[in-house]
């Protein structure tokens, strides 16, 4: 259970001070997936930074299972918007970095191999990040987060650089992993479809400074053939209206 | 291929911060050079290394130097000719904490010096004169004088080869003078000019040496106190030596002794420091002094 109340975040830019999040309050039950949607610059990444312990200067109260945020004791799998790969590590080492930090040096085991195979990057193990295409880099970041079997999964537009088909496979893979371990997940996306397909709740942020516009219980969660369903269309319209009005 | 004689050429002389060089400064101060018709630029150096760099770099016509350096220079292709002896002494001092009172007490002890120089030559001869083999002392190389002085004071070496004004300073602080080149009568400090200058500008050199003699005469007659402040200031001597420094008896210029030169040459040959052997007459210029008097 993640409890966020009255979270505000300021950034100190060189010439100004920027309010990125403005009194955001939100509860995320354990094992749930919430999708976070909102205009560009609305503070979605900032929100994840706070949960991950990257952004440590904030106002308000944030607790995970009643305790303050502490990435040392939590097991946070994070997929950063810019992937967060280390340029001096090859694909193998980048993918294993999460589990290495948490449990010491590792070889590829069955599970990590399975993940890399599912992500179709098991042939690129010796490549360095600069030798990968954008989508391949993103998949390495996904692999890192999945392989470490996190308790909390924070995904910042994790499929943005993937083609439509791969994206759907990834969504399926994600749901598969989520079901097995019921990882609490915050999923930032720009796609209304993805928000509807993957989120048990959908949180809509306002444009900058980010406020919670609405929290929607999502009836379309995990629906097969989403676009053929009636509910999809009404929900889709509803979301778009909220976003456009803002 | 050498440039022909330039009448009235400016003569540059590199001097060292020691008492040997004092007449050159006095001559400048009292206007003896101009009086004798020479244009002279006296360039003070802080170390033999700097002086030799400038000499090797062709920036000097004459230097206050010593026989060892002159022989080395000639072996290295810089034709230096000695014109005159100078009057400074080299002294062997024992540190106050060493309890050494005589040269034979140095056996097995450490002596600070600079190696392959006039300092080492003098030390070797000082030791031999007291029936100590040079190998029996522990020679510790410390090229810079102020550092050597500090090492002696700080008991990092038991004894050290020194020159004025540092020897006076050490004496005052409790060191003992064991012996000196005065005692041994083997002074090998000298004024030397390059062969080119001697060939092309003999008149100017003569004028320089006349001015030197004027200065030496002045130094002989005047009370030390009347010029010491200037010397200390211009030479960069420690201020404390004012009351204790032992200024040498400055003499009129005269040729270096052949006996000493041959001894130096023998020492260098023994140590295989140079391949060639030089005769006294090879490295001496008699003309300047001879014609100067005429």
């Amino acid at each position, binding site marked *: 259970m993640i409890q966020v109340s009255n979270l505000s975040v300021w950034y100190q830019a060189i010439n100004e001070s920027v309010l990125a999040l403005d009194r955001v309050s939100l509860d995320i039950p354990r094992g749930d997936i919430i999708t976070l949607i909102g205009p560009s610059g609305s503070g979605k990444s900032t929100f994840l930074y706070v949960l991950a312990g990257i952004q440590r200067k904030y106002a308000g109260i944030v607790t995970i299972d009643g305790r303050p945020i*502490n990435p040392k004791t939590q097991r946070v799998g994070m997929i950063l918007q810019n992937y967060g790969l280390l340029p*001096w590590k*090859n694909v193998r080492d980048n993918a294993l970095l999460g589990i290495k930090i948490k449990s010491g040096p590792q070889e590829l085991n069955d599970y990590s191999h399975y993940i890399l195979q599912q992500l179709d990057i098991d042939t690129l193990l010796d490549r360095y990040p*600069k030798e990968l295409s954008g989508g391949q880099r993103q998949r390495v970041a996904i692999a890192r987060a999945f392989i470490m079997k996190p308790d909390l999964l924070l995904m910042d537009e994790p499929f943005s650089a993937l083609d439509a088909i791969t994206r759907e496979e990834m969504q399926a893979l994600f749901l598969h992993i989520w079901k097995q371990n019921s990882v609490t997940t915050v999923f930032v996306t720009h796609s209304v479809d993805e928000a509807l397909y993957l989120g048990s709740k959908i949180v809509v942020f306002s444009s900058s400074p980010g406020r919670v516009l609405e929290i929607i219980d999502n009836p379309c969660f995990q629906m097969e053939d989403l676009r053929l369903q009636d509910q999809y269309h009404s929900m889709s319209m509803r979301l778009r209206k909220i976003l456009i009005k803002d | 291929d050498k440039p022909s004689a330039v009448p009235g050429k400016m003569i540059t002389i590199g001097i060292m911060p020691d008492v040997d060089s004092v007449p050159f400064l006095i001559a400048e101060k009292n206007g003896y050079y101009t009086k004798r018709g020479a244009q002279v630029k006296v360039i003070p150096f802080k170390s033999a290394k700097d002086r*030799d760099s400038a000499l090797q770099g062709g920036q000097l016509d004459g230097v206050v130097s010593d026989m060892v350096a002159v022989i080395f220079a000639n072996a290295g292709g810089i034709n230096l000719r000695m014109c005159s002896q100078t009057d400074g002494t080299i002294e062997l001092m024992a540190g106050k904490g060493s309890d050494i009172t005589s040269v034979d007490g140095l056996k097995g002890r450490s002596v600070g010096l600079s190696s*392959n120089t006039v300092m080492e030559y003098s030390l070797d001869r000082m030791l031999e004169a007291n029936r100590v083999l040079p190998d029996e002392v522990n020679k510790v190389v410390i*090229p810079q004088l102020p550092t050597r002085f500090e090492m002696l004071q700080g008991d990092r070496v038991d004894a050290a080869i020194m020159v004025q004004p540092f020897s006076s300073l050490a004496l005052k602080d409790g060191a003992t003078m064991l012996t000196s080149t005065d005692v041994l009568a083997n002074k090998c400090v000298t004024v030397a000019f390059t062969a080119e200058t001697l060939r092309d500008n003999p008149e100017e050199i003569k004028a320089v040496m006349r001015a030197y003699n004027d200065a030496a005469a002045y130094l002989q007659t005047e009370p030390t106190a009347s010029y010491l402040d200037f010397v200390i200031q211009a030479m960069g001597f420690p201020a404390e030596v004012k009351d204790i420094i032992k200024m040498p008896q400055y003499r009129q210029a005269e040729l270096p002794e052949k006996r000493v030169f041959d001894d130096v040459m023998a020492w260098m040959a023994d140590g295989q*420091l140079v391949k060639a052997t030089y005769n006294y007459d090879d490295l001496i210029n008699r003309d300047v002094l001879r014609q100067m008097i005429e």
Partner: protein
Amino acid sequence: MRSRKWRGAIYSLIVVILAWWALSALLARPIVPSPYDVLLNIIATFTAKISTHVLYSLGRILAGILLAALLGVPLGFLMGYYDRIDRLLSPLVYFTYPIPKLALLPVVMLLFGLGEVSKLIMIVLIVVFQVVITSRDAVKSIPAETFHSLQSLGASKIQTFTEIILPASLPEVLTAIRLALGTAVSILFFTETFGTEYGMGYFIMDAWMRVNYLDMYAGIVVLSFMGFCIFSAIDAAETHLCAWR
């Protein structure tokens, strides 16, 4: 690639020798002997005279740089990573770096004697600042975003150092070590002139005082060749360690 590299080395060797030869012909003074004579001299004297000196100097340089790196790199990393440490120590470095260490040589000799310890201390004293400043600046130039993934993983400080700070600043640290090498060579000329009769510094200075230019230049050539070898070793290490670039 490899052969190209050697071609460059040979070209530049030829250029250096030609320039040297031209200068010696132009000046026609013993102070710049011809490279040919010097080469003959090296061949004649290397094993007999110079090799021992090389080993002494090599030992001192490597020990000095190693020690300076062991002290300086961690200190620079700490200063680069923790702003508080930087604020405390940077002024200290800025005050003490320009202190002319050579002027302190007598004090070091008084405290540590005339032996190897003083020599090592002088090298370290001078070189460590270069290493500290470069390492600090290298760490400061790592973008904050690079740390995000390790932060979210709750990595320990040590993990952050080994996974990010070390690899990210390794190239700059190697540059610093290259620079330190050149400096260390110069320092030989002060530290190997006292209390020892071995080392390239002593050899060259002694030849210089003896106005033996052939020996002196032989020493200089051997010293630069030694430097060249160390540089090439550092380059090889970099190619290996920073393959990701």
